[in-house]
C-alpha cells in the first residue's frame, strides 16, 4: 500500500542518486586521491617521505602543540561551561558571545592579531625582544594561535548539555553532604563525560589541522616552526606532490580515526541509559 508520505520511485532514486553523487565527488573522491597519490610511487617512497627529518619535525611540533593546547582548552571549556550552564551572573551573554568569537573571526585574522600584539613592530614586541623572548615565528606563537582558534570546541559542546541538565543533581549531592570537589567529580563530570569526549575529539582534529592562523605566526622555518599542514603546503609548492600527499595522508588518517571514535561514542551514548 502506498502511504501518503511516499514519493514515486523515480523521485526517490533521483534524490538518493544526487545525494550519493555529491558525497562521492566532494568527500570520497578527494579522500581517495590523497591516499592514491601518497602511495603512487610505492610504499618505500611513502615511508621515506614521512620519515624525512623535516616531516618528522613537523609531526613532532604538531603533536607537541596539541599536547599543550588540548588540556588547556579542556580545563577552560569545562570552567566556562560550568559557569554559564549552572550559574546566573551579569555579563553571561557577553561571555557566551566571546567564546564564539574564534568561530566568527577568520583564522588568518586571528593569526594577524597575535603578530600585531607580539610581533617585532607590535605593542609588546620591542619589550619581548629586549628580554630575548620569542613568540612570533616561534613555537609559543603557534601554540597561542592554535589555542585561540580551538578555544570554543569544548565549551560549545558542554554549555547546552549543562544547561539542559540543570543544577538539581548538584544540589542533591550538596544536601547529602558532598563537598564541591566531590560534587564535581562524582556528579557533574560523569554526566558530561560523553559530551566532553566529543568536544575533545573535535578540538584535537582542529588543533592538528589548523592552517590559517598558524601560517601567519609560524614564519615557515623548516624543521623548526612548520606544523604538518604547513609542511604539506611547502612540499606541494616545491612540486613534491607525492611527499605532500604522503604527509597529508597522515592528517587524513587522523580525520578518519576521529570519525570512527566519534561514531563509537555516539553509539555508546545511545546504548547507555
Amino acid at each position, binding site marked *: 500500500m502506498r502511504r501518503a508520505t511516499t514519493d514515486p520511485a523515480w523521485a526517490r532514486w533521483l534524490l538518493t542518486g544526487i545525494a550519493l553523487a555529491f558525497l562521492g565527488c566532494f568527500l570520497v573522491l578527494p579522500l581517495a586521491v590523497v591516499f592514491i597519490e601518497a602511495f603512487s610511487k610505492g610504499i618505500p617512497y611513502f615511508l621515506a617521505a614521512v620519515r624525512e627529518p623535516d616531516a618528522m619535525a613537523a609531526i613532532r611540533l604538531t603533536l607537541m602543540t596539541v599536547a599543550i593546547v588540548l588540556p588547556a582548552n579542556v580545563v577552560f571549556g569545562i570552567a566556562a561551561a560550568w559557569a554559564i550552564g549552572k550559574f546566573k551572573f551579569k555579563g553571561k551573554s557577553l561571555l557566551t558571545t566571546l567564546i564564539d568569537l574564534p568561530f566568527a573571526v577568520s583564522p588568518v585574522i586571528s593569526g594577524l592579531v597575535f603578530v600585531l600584539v607580539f610581533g617585532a613592530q607590535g605593542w609588546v614586541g620591542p619589550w619581548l625582544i629586549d628580554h630575548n623572548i620569542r613568540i612570533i615565528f616561534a613555537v609559543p606563537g603557534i601554540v597561542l594561535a592554535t589555542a585561540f582558534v580551538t578555544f570554543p570546541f569544548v565549551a560549545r559542546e558542554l554549555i547546552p548539555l549543562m544547561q539542559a541538565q540543570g543544577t538539581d543533581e548538584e544540589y*542533591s549531592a*550538596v544536601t547529602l*553532604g558532598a563537598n564541591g570537589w566531590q560534587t564535581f567529580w562524582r556528579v557533574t563530570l560523569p554526566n558530561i563525560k560523553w559530551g566532553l569526549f566529543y568536544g575533545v575529539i573535535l578540538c584535537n582534529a582542529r588543533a592538528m589541522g589548523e592552517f590559517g592562523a598558524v601560517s601567519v605566526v609560524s614564519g615557515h622555518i623548516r624543521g623548526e616552526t612548520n606544523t604538518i599542514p604547513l609542511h604539506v603546503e611547502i612540499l606541494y609548492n616545491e612540486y613534491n606532490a607525492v611527499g605532500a600527499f604522503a604527509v597529508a595522508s597522515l592528517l587524513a588518517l587522523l580525520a578518519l580515526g576521529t570519525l570512527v571514535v566519534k561514531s563509537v561514542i555516539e553509539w555508546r551514548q545511545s546504548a547507555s541509559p
Partner: protein
Amino acid sequence: MSIEAHGIRKKFGSYTALDGVDLNVPQGKLVALLGPSGSGKTTLLRIIAGLEFPDAGSGRVLFHGDDVTDVPAGKRRVGFVFQHYALFRHMSVLENVAFGLRVRRRRDRPSSSAIIERAHRLLELVQLDGLAGRFPSQLSGGERQRVALARALAVEPKVLLLDEPFGALDARVRKDLRRWLRRFHDEIQLTTIFVTHDQEEALEIADEVVIMNKAHVEQVGTPQQVYDKPASPFVYQFLGNVNVLKAPALVPPRRPGPPDHEAADTQIYVRPHDIALTPHDAGGEGLSAIVRHIHAAGPYAKLLIEQVQSREHVEVEISRSELADMGLQVNDLVRMRLRQTHSFDEDYAI
C-alpha cells in the same frame, strides 16, 4: 527535631519571595506548606534546607533551638527530596542511595560492604529492593520518588524536606503514594515538611497546614481548623470551591429604613455543598432561584443556579439521590438555603 524560622525575608532582584515569614514545626510532625505557585513556599523550604539563604540580617533558622542560619546545607543533616527527584542519572539505584555515605570523610565513613548493606536496607524500607541494579531512567515516577526518599534517609537526617513530592505523578499514583507517605511518616517519626499546591493533599495527610500567599503566611492550623475556621478570604477560597455572594441580597437589612450601606460592601462566602435546595412549590424559607445547568456525571450533582432577585450565579453540590428525588430539570424554580456561611467583616455577623 523541631524547626523554627523567624522573620525570614528573601528577595530575588526586585521580586519579594518571602516577606518576614515565621514558622514553627514541632518535633515529629508532618507539616504541609500549602500555597499557590509564587507564594514563596518552595523558597522557604530551600532556606530551611540551606540551599538558599535569607537576606542579610533578616531572619534566623533554628533546628532544635540551635541557630543553623549560617550552617551550609551539607552539615544541617536534612534529607531533601526534589520535585523532579534529581536522582544521579549515571548511577544505579543502589549507588544513588549509597552516595551520601560514600562522600563522608574517611573516619566517618562505614566500610564499603556496610554501605551497600545499609543501602539495601533502605531500599527494603521503601519497598524497592528488587530494583537496586536499575538506573533511574528505567523506573516509573513513583519508584523514582521512593528512591529519592531512600537516598535522603541514608544520611540519617534529622528532618525531611519534600518539595512537591507528588507533583510530577499521575492522579492514581499520587493518591496511593501520599497515603503511603503518611504511614511511612508514622513509622519513622521524622519531623517532615512538604510543599504542595494541592489543598486536598495537604488536608488529607498533614498534621498541620501552613497556608502561604504572596510571600506571607496566611494561616497555620490543623487541617480541620483551617478548613472550618479560615482566617482570611484567601484561605477560604484556596481550600475549596466557594461562592462569593453580595450580602444584602441574602439578608434583609438589620433595621427598617434606607438600605444599609455598611452591609452593602460585605460579602458572604459559602461552599457549594453548604447550600440546600428545595422545590419551590414546597414553600418555606429560602431565596428563589432558577436552575441553569446540571452536571450529574460524578459522585455529586453539580448545579448552577441563578438567584432570581440579584441575578447572581451560584454553584451548588447536592447528592445525586437528592437530585433524583426532586426531579429537577433545567429552568425549574427552586428555593435555596445557606446552611453555613462565612464572612470576614468583623462587625458583621449573620
